[in-house]
């Protein structure tokens, strides 16, 4: 029972890491930018969700509002900053570094702006379902209806992404633009627009991750920083290029951490996440799940 319960808890936290990993991979694939601002975009969206909850007390309204806000913020970041930067700095080391540094700066900017608007103190809101674990006979396991909600929501988001990427013309354009933008352009794909849509999808996924994770923590301008790092670990395990890899990478990480927390030591859990990050990059930079040079959907 303990084993099973740990697995479920790991699945629940892993689902959130997967969403963040997915967001990072979407941006990386579409524009080759390592987006540190993803945590900032997600925190801004989560605060907007918090605003909705504190006004209406309705989590089910807050989630889609945050998702749309996240998508809009993502699109805005691409159009206002990344696209402009790519046009101005076309080659040389600055062309690769500048957007990454800009996202780092943007992370700081969004955090402090959010702090100015809502204050730096901790906020909290409740999940729409109880966080009290399921009970089987006389045993209560840590896995709760709230955890189940997280898993279901993440699965829905990923299923929608998977359908879009595999079955629609937009998905085809997104994949083509990620693979070889020049060839996609020549074939008539509006690569700039498609990239912005990639950023919007990423923003939406990050926002959902933020709104889902916050009831179990609390909300402050930097409360999603750890999630960003764990999202990177998940993305790296998955090979950075693959959406499926990101989803699996996040879940693998979540389950791994849950087992270390439960069976080894609380203080070792997060250091081991970073050790995994470094080891994967050292030993198999294409990711445990990534294939060489491959960029599947």
């Amino acid at each position, binding site marked *: 029972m303990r084993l099973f319960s740990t697995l479920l808890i790991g699945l629940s936290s892993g689902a959130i890491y997967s969403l963040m990993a997915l967001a990072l991979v979407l941006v990386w694939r579409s524009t080759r930018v390592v987006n540190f601002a993803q945590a900032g975009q997600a925190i801004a969206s989560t605060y907007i969700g918090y605003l909705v909850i504190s006004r209406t007390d309705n989590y089910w309204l807050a989630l889609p509002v945050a998702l749309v806000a996240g998508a809009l913020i993502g699109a805005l970041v691409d159009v206002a900053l990344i696209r402009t930067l790519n046009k101005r700095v076309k080659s040389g080391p600055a062309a690769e570094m500048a957007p990454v540094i800009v996202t780092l700066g943007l992370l700081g900017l969004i955090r402090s702006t959010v702090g100015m608007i809502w204050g730096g103190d901790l906020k909290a809101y409740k999940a729409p379902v109880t966080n009290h674990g399921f009970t089987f006979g006389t045993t209560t396991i840590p896995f709760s209806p709230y955890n189940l909600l997280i898993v279901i929501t993440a699965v829905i988001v990923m299923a929608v992404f998977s359908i879009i990427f595999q079955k629609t*013309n937009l998905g*085809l354009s997104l994949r083509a633009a990620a693979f070889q933008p020049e*060839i996609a352009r*020549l*074939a*008539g*794909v*509006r690569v700039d627009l498609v990239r912005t849509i990639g950023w919007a999808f990423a923003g939406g996924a990050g926002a959902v991750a933020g709104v889902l994770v916050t009831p179990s923590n609390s909300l402050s301008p930097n409360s999603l920083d750890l999630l960003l790092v764990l999202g990177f670990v998940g993305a790296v395990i998955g090979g950075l290029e693959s959406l499926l890899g990101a989803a699996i990478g996040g879940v693998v990480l979540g389950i791994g951490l849950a087992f270390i927390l439960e069976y080894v030591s609380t203080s070792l859990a997060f250091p081991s996440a970073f050790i995994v990050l470094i080891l994967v990059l050292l030993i198999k930079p294409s990711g445990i799940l990534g294939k060489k040079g491959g960029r*599947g959907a």
Partner: protein
Amino acid sequence: MSAPLLSINGLGVHFGGLAALSDVDIELNKNEVVGLIGPNGAGKTTLFNALSGLVSCEGNLELEGKSHEWPQPNELVDLGISRTLQGVGLFPDMTVLENVMIGATKFATGGLIRSALGLDIRTEKVLRSLAMDALAKVSCTGIADRKVDSLPYPTTKRIAIARALVSDPKILLLDEPAGGLGAEDIEWMNSFIDVISNRCSILLVEHHMDVVMSVCDRIYVLNFGKLIASGTPEHVRNNPDVIEAYLGSSAGKQ
């Protein structure tokens, strides 16, 4: 006589101080197959790149008699121009059908947002059937669901052509369609070019002289970025400048 489909005047492309093309004039008429030949580095592919917006250039461009800005890469298809690439340029991880469907994007009427919301199942069907039609033209419908990286090279060349044809272009730019092919496939390509020249005009860069001489109505010869000759295959074949350019370059290589 009506205005040529494509008319390029005084085309120049410079990389730093080096003139890759200078003062090149090219015309392409309706249903014409025009060859662009010359030794390596003569500027043939550069001309294609200039016309596809991949390199910046100077000079005038006229389409069907109307002066036009040099297009951006993603405007090409909308102008009725399609091109294939020397390195095939397919998406290896995608299926044959998906590769061809990308070329049909301009027919996606519903827009990307509708497509994202799954409101556009009809458009998906239309694109799919257009892509299947294009694959039928190159006799590849049987492999529509295969991944491109599992296919032999000559087959990928056919798929690249299907992707260029699916947008129903008025002008088809073929970059070395016979390059890397064996005798049998070259034979097929020859007759295929003949067939599709009834539907569109073709500008062709090619090293295989047999192909060029047999399919082209007219030929332009480039050397060191300049036009050195143009005319019918017969005329070009006997031009002393052309003979010298080719002999000179092959002698230089050995």
